[in-house]
């Protein structure tokens, strides 16, 4: 049996020769995201394991198929974390719903347990509540090893904090949904877990909430997450115990119990909060943070100091995308039972032609995850 990377190169070369689409897949937890996956499944799970982890260098390197949880556990043991708080979106059948009448386990149509991998995390480029304060996945990428559409393994970036040798192609793979190459290995900057944390809840209307979040972000306060939904604004503070307690005194509001707060933020991150339940289309609007409450049909939830608006709506895509563009940003059809429009906001013609040329530079045969990012490349 050849090693997984050699095997991958063989599969890719053969697919390129036959122009057969490959669907790059780790745990499959982000299958819902972007355009519909198609093609022969190329499983990245055999590329597994932490290659190196140096807590004093603040750097971890792991293979793409490594479960995100394995990485987070290794970091936690050394008091460190992935500061961008990646969502896993792994489905774990809860005990009651996995049990049929008479207490028999329902196996047939229960979704499989899915485990998020590092490669999927980078390819999807999604970050959690801490993003507006600590940075996104792309901000923590130090280097990648990828395999391009010709089956060549390429290394860009490295395992050091500062590196300007060559174009920044490691960041280019973040959020590219595998269209530029199969991610083989990733090096990430990691940060210490803050010594202390507190979550406050305040009652506020949407205008006031957006204003408050932006005011806090402009002050030297240790804010690491904000979320607003239906009259209730939650803010998380993280840092040294003294800094957190000083900020709590300044900001007011009601402190949440620590366990409850941890669950609250993980439910926001993992879309387990009630707002995310049900089948109605979920839109993700990334906008200028000071944008006032957006006048769109359907409930909204606000994160990232106002820069992220989640919307449950059956409104027409053009209306939603127009509103997001007007607010200095863009809208993604994040989840929907049937996506009748492209998941991602259309690009300007000038940018689209650059995207096509970049795609062709990495994957001339167009076999890697075609249609995942944009319908026709």
């Amino acid at each position: 049996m050849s090693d997984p990377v050699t095997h991958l190169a063989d599969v890719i070369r053969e697919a390129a020769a036959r122009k057969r689409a490959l669907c790059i897949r780790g745990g499959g937890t982000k299958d819902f995201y972007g355009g519909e996956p198609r093609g022969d499944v190329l499983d990245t799970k055999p590329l597994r394991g932490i290659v190196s982890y140096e807590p004093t260098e603040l750097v971890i390197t792991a293979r793409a198929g490594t479960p995100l949880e394995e990485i987070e556990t290794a970091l936690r043991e050394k008091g460190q974390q992935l500061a961008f708080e990646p969502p896993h979106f792994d489905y774990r059948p809860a005990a009651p719903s996995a049990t049929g009448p008479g207490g028999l386990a329902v196996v047939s149509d229960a979704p499989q347990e899915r485990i998020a991998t590092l490669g999927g995390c980078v390819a999807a480029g999604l970050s959690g509540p801490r993003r507006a304060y600590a940075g996104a996945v792309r901000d923590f990428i130090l280097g990648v090893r990828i395999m391009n559409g010709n089956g060549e393994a390429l290394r860009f970036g490295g395992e050091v904090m500062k590196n300007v040798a060559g174009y920044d192609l490691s960041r280019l793979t973040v959020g590219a949904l595998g269209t530029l190459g199969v991610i083989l290995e990733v090096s990430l900057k990691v940060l210490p877990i803050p010594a202390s944390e507190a979550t406050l809840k305040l009652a506020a209307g949407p205008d006031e909430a957006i204003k408050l979040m932006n005011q806090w972000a402009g002050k030297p306060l240790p804010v690491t997450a904000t979320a607003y939904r239906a009259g209730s604004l939650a803010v998380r503070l993280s840092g040294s115990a003294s800094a957190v307690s000083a900020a709590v005194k300044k900001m007011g509001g009601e402190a949440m119990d620590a366990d409850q707060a941890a669950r609250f933020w993980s439910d926001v991150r993992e879309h387990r909060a009630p707002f995310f339940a049900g089948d109605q289309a979920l839109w993700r609007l990334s906008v200028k943070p000071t944008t006032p409450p957006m006048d769109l049909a359907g409930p909204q939830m606000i994160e990232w100091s106002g820069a992220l608006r989640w919307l449950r709506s059956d409104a027409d895509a053009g209306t939603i995308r127009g509103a997001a563009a007007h607010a200095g940003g863009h809208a993604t059809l994040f989840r929907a039972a049937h996506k009748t429009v492209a998941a991602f906001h259309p690009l300007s013609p000038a940018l689209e032609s650059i995207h096509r040329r970049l795609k062709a530079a990495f994957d001339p045969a167009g076999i890697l995850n075609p249609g995942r990012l944009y319908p026709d490349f």
Partner: protein
Amino acid sequence: MTAPAEQIAIDLERQREVVSVLRTFLPAASVLFAQEDVKPYECDGLTAYRQVPMVVALPETEQQVCRILRECHARKVPVVARGAGTGLSGGALPLGNGVLLSLAKFTRILDIDYPARTARVQPGVRNLAISEAVAGHGLFYAPDPSSQLACSIGGNVAENSGGIHCLKYGLTVHNILRLRVATIEGDILEIGADALDSPGYDLLALMTGSEGMLGVVTEVTVRLLPKPEYAQVVMASFDDMGKAGDAVANVIAAGIVPAGFEMMDQAATRAVEGFAKAGYRTDVAAVLLCESDGTHEEVADEIRRIQHVMETSGAVQTQVSRDEAERLRFWAGRKAAFPAAGAISPDYYCMDGTIPKKRVGEVLRRIAEMEKKYGLRCANVFHAGDGNLHPLILYDANQPGALERTEAFGAEILELCLDVGGTITGEHGVGVEKINQMCVQFTSPELETFHAVKRAFDREGLLNPGKAVPSLHRCAEYGRMHVHRGQEKFPDLPRF
């Protein structure tokens, strides 16, 4: 660094043609070509390389930039963009057959949005001018390269500049939101957004650090951060370089992310102390500066912890800055390291490798061996927090062979950085200076990918040609002498 080539003679007929075209839409004073007018543009901060440009264009509007690019593109005239000219890798070295496009007149701050904490600025705005403009609102622009008094934000984008505070606050790529970029065809691209992310590929990251090879930045929207309430610095002296290196690791292991973390070896502290009188001990092997910033409560806590770690790591002395004046004095020495090197030696050559922090003791030991081998002195300053090492090789260009020995010394340091798992450039860029070492850091398919990315923006290779990414042919030539990690890098290419 490679031996500077002979200056290229200007093709006068071509020059006349380009000047007359540019003068149709630019005032005569904005199109320079007389020898004495173009001479000041012959080099950037890397003065060992000089070439006068055929023509210098000084546009004032984005439309003029686009028009210059369009006309040059139509005539296949190469274009080199230049900001303040402070770059240290020759990225803005002009071409004798090309136009030097200076963004020096783009010095306006267009808009500051205090509630959203952003500033929209022209590319020629000085880095420090942004922080100065917003200081009254308690905000600042975080990346602070040592040249921040003079360097321009457009140049910072081209080089992905860092600075002393980048371990905590990030590089340019982490602190910008949006760019307007003119392509070689003279079209404008809007990259990034007022939001935190954009659809599609991360072209904002790709553009940052691309050394003027993909487009010309005409506008930058930067993120502004709340200015920390308070800052204090611990100065720790060590009688052993190994212990100082361990202290760096121990601070990080204690869960501290210092706002600034610098190391200087004895050669550096001696040079600096004579020059800046910062109060460094010159009888020790290394001095560390470790800064904490944040709220008063946070800083008090963290400084106590840093001091404790330094002491348990074997510091012979630790001092905490007692007031702002003393904090600035401690930093003044480190910030004067380059001029101080200039004061004790006729010439110095500044290197810019990054290494895993834990290898610093070993790397400095091997640099000391190289000092003997090449018969040259080297002072080392080190951004300890992020592993970015700046060896300053001291030499006298008037001594026959000294420049060549310096170049060989520098090349060996860069390749040592690669050997220990680092990179040839942390923040100064490749430019023309480190182009040969790119052949050592990257394989042929990797370099080919860089070229393909360049072609996606600039099919004919007219923007800053010859910089940043070496041709495979050049690497084959260079590779004859360099077999790296026991592997030949370009096995498929013919050797000459």
